[in-house]
């Protein structure tokens, strides 16, 4: 930009700066508590309004009493004391959103946490906003591919859906979310090159109440895989004020709405809403609001429902953008009937349930296929995936039933035994290491081969190796087939014939 342009821009800007009297409402700090400040004055303040203290610390109004207000601090301040002044800003809390945020790590009020430059002024987006109404929405019909075989085949997720990831500590909840983000790379590349491909997916990872080191690891991984280029990390860690932890998911979705309103598709991960509920509980206890079940405030359901309602697929009239939400909930001892889990299950369109016994027996991702469900994603599955998903779903369901029988040690006939054996191999194919999401073509290859009996004569412990070599073989020997499976279109008879041929060829070389 040359200097003339800069000057012109400032001139333009000046014309928009309001002239005349600036009216501010002020107050005085009465008591300084743990992250909550009570102030007198501020008689014109409104609920949720942002305020600024004399030392520049920002806060948000959370309680309006007759002659005082309660303010949560949005940063750390050691110096605040009784009698300090505090001013209203006239803004309901908002975050500055722009394309510049991609690749950045910010806190819920938009301040960078990655040591990078400050984010240039973009569009201010309100943290709290009413979700789009019924007529502004349209049904979910495009797949959001996770690259994880068991999920894409059996619990498919569509753009605009809300799918809960739920399970005990350390079972790979974050892993599923991060793999899904990493998996958007291929699709985003395609979207750049071709107009016919589905739109790119902008990803937002909201970290709530986690350790700094855990978040740093996630960011590092995203950087390493190149996924950070299309990802924004909004973080409020365990050492940050609870107010920021409470606000983080709303800030994340506000940024998501910025992209959605431009017609883009957004994936947002809330990791995790259990800690979000804790943060809200802590704030409400300090504010002395009445507590209900498990000491959570009465409106914790509303806190989550108004957040998740903002995940939506907009109508074409509004640009057709979407927000897909993957909230994460941590359970205790696989108990999904606790207060927060049941709440969030009832608000989402399905859940991916991870179980510790599966994880410990080596089935990773530890998805309990029987208890997991996706209520709308089926409509969004690609034709190609649909052609193989039905078979594998059935095979896995039969396997789960037979397993129970087999435990009784009863005599099994040959047909049942072969079903059991096939089921074991399906289970094996559903195992997938972390950070290695697969393209849809490869997912289909594996699933097709196992459900059509091509792995029946492979030893269970060899299935993983078989799969790997099989993928390599087809990728080098039949690029056309991979292309045909990548279109997302229904698998035709012709393609099936080719699949058979190539698979038989490969099996001759496999030992």
């Amino acid at each position, binding site marked *: 930009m040359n200097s003339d342009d800069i000057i012109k821009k400032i001139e333009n800007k*000046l014309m928009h700066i309001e002239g005349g*009297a600036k*009216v501010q409402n*002020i107050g005085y700090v009465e008591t300084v508590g743990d992250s909550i400040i009570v102030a007198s004055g501020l008689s014109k303040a409104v609920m949720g309004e942002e305020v600024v203290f004399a030392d520049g610390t920002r806060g948000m109004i959370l309680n309006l009493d007759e002659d005082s207000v309660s303010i949560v601090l949005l940063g750390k301040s050691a110096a605040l004391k009784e009698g300090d002044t505090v001013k209203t800003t006239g803004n309901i809390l908002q975050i500055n959103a722009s394309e510049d945020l991609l690749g950045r790590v910010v806190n819920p009020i938009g301040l960078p946490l990655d040591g990078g*430059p400050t984010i*240039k002024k973009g569009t201010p987006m309100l943290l709290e906003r009413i979700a789009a109404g019924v007529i502004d929405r349209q049904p979910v019909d495009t797949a959001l591919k996770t690259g994880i075989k068991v999920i894409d085949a059996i619990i498919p997720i569509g753009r605009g859906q809300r799918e809960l990831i739920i399970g005990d500590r350390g079972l790979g909840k974050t892993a599923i979310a991060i793999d899904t983000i990493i998996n958007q790379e291929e699709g985003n590349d395609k979207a750049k090159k071709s107009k016919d491909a589905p739109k790119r997916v902008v990803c937002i990872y909201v970290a709530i109440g986690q350790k700094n080191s855990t978040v740093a690891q996630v960011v590092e991984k995203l950087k390493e895989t190149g996924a950070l280029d299309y990802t924004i990390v909004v973080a409020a860690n365990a050492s940050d004020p609870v107010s920021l932890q409470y606000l983080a998911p709303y800030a994340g979705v506000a940024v998501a709405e910025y992209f959605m309103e431009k017609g883009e598709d957004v994936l947002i991960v809330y990791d995790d809403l259990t800690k979000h509920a804790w943060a809200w509980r802590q704030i409400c206890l300090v504010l002395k609001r009445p507590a209900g079940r498990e000491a959570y405030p009465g409106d914790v359901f509303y806190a989550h429902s108004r957040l998740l309602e903002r995940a939506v697929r907009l109508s074409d009239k509004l640009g057709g953008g979407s927000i897909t939400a993957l909230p994460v909930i941590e359970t205790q001892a696989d108990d999904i009937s606790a207060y927060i889990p049941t709440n969030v299950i009832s608000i989402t369109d399905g859940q991916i349930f991870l179980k510790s016994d599966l994880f410990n027996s080596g089935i990773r991702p530890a998805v309990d296929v029987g208890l997991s469900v996706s209520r709308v994603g089926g409509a969004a599955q690609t034709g190609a995936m649909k052609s193989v998903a039905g078979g594998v779903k059935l095979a896995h369901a039969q396997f789960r039933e037979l397993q129970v029988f087999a435990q009784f040690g009863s005599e099994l006939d040959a047909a049942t035994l072969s079903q059991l054996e096939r089921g074991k191999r399906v289970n094996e194919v559903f195992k997938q290491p972390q950070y290695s999401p697969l393209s849809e073509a490869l997912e289909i290859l594996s699933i097709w081969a196992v459900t059509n009996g091509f792995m029946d004569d492979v030893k269970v412990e060899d299935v993983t190796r078989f799969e790997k070599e099989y993928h390599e073989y087809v990728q080098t020997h039949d690029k056309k087939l991979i292309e045909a499976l990548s279109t997302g279109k229904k698998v035709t008879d012709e393609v099936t014939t080719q699949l058979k041929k190539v698979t038989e060829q490969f099996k001759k070389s496999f030992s």
Partner: protein
Amino acid sequence: MTKRLLQQLVLASYQKEKLNPQRVDEITNRLDRKDIKAYLRALKLMEQQKKLFVAMPKTSVYNTSKKDLEKLFPKKEIVFTEDPSLLLGVTLVDNDMVYEMNLRDQLETVLDEVDQQYSE
């Protein structure tokens, strides 16, 4: 002590819109330490509400506009401070409302705006 009672005590401390020292003494003698604190705070607030704080860059300018201000705020006691850093114009503080009508504030707004646009 209830808020209502406190409010009544504060009102009772005044006679003809002025604080009455004897009444204040009588009241404070009958209150315990904690209540005196609350009472003091309420009195301060009341006193503040009766005042209008005016800041201008020069006392001479204030003297010429004093009459107008008194007309505008007939019930207020006007407290003036000289503040050259305002450059031009005035700042009024009426209870918890602040009216910035001065050059310094305008310049600060412009600076903020430029900062946000061009910070790197």
